């Protein structure tokens, strides 16, 4: 079956512009995660959705970052007024129920802010 997909695969934007990144999780997976990975670094947790529960937003670095998820399907991560420090690969992952299960990662969106 289809895995996790993300779009766009690459995004170059000017400082100050808003960007929207999309994640399509595996059908039936109720948990969805967003991570940020700077070059040569580990993964930074951003936000976690679990079913209809309130999302865990504890990892969002500033109020410029927000994310939504429609039911148990698509999620979008929005970064407003982008800064050069936002340049990174943004990874989305989904899992069957909770993080007690393995996560399936998408290929990521490489964001470059010029």
């Amino acid at each position, binding site marked *: 079956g289809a895995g996790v997909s993300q779009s766009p695969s690459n995004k170059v934007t000017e400082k100050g512009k808003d960007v929207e990144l999309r994640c399509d999780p595996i059908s039936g997976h109720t948990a969805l995660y967003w991570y940020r990975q700077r070059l040569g670094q580990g993964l930074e947790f951003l936000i976690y959705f679990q079913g209809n529960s309130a999302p865990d937003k504890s990892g969002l670095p500033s109020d410029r970052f927000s994310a939504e998820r429609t039911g148990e399907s698509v999620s979008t991560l929005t970064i407003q007024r982008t800064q050069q420090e936002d340049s990174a690969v943004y990874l989305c992952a989904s899992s069957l129920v909770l993080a*007690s299960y393995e*996560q399936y990662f998408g290929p990521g969106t490489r964001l470059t802010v010029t």
Partner: protein
Amino acid sequence: SQQGEEDPQALSIQEGENATMNCSYKTSINNLQWYRQNSGRGLVHLILIRSNEREKHSGRLRVTLDTSKKSSSLLITASRAADTASYFCATVSSASKIIFGSGTRLSIRP
């Protein structure tokens, strides 16, 4: 700092040798997972070990978990060129909070 810290940060070995990577963490966990990442894009799940397990095998992979020392190790036996990648441990708390370490970059020399 990150919950999971991998050690070493980088490892270079000859093809056919075994590679061992370690992960240390600070708080109690529900389970610990190991992932591989090629070319800085998506991660691939390798193995999950629960807090009540001490050792787990999957093909050429062997993972150990010592909850008293809050540490885990990943052993790759008979390494191959295709094993060249970054390896990350991820700890999962009982509240489903998942934290990734900074990773070990493994290079296999032919």
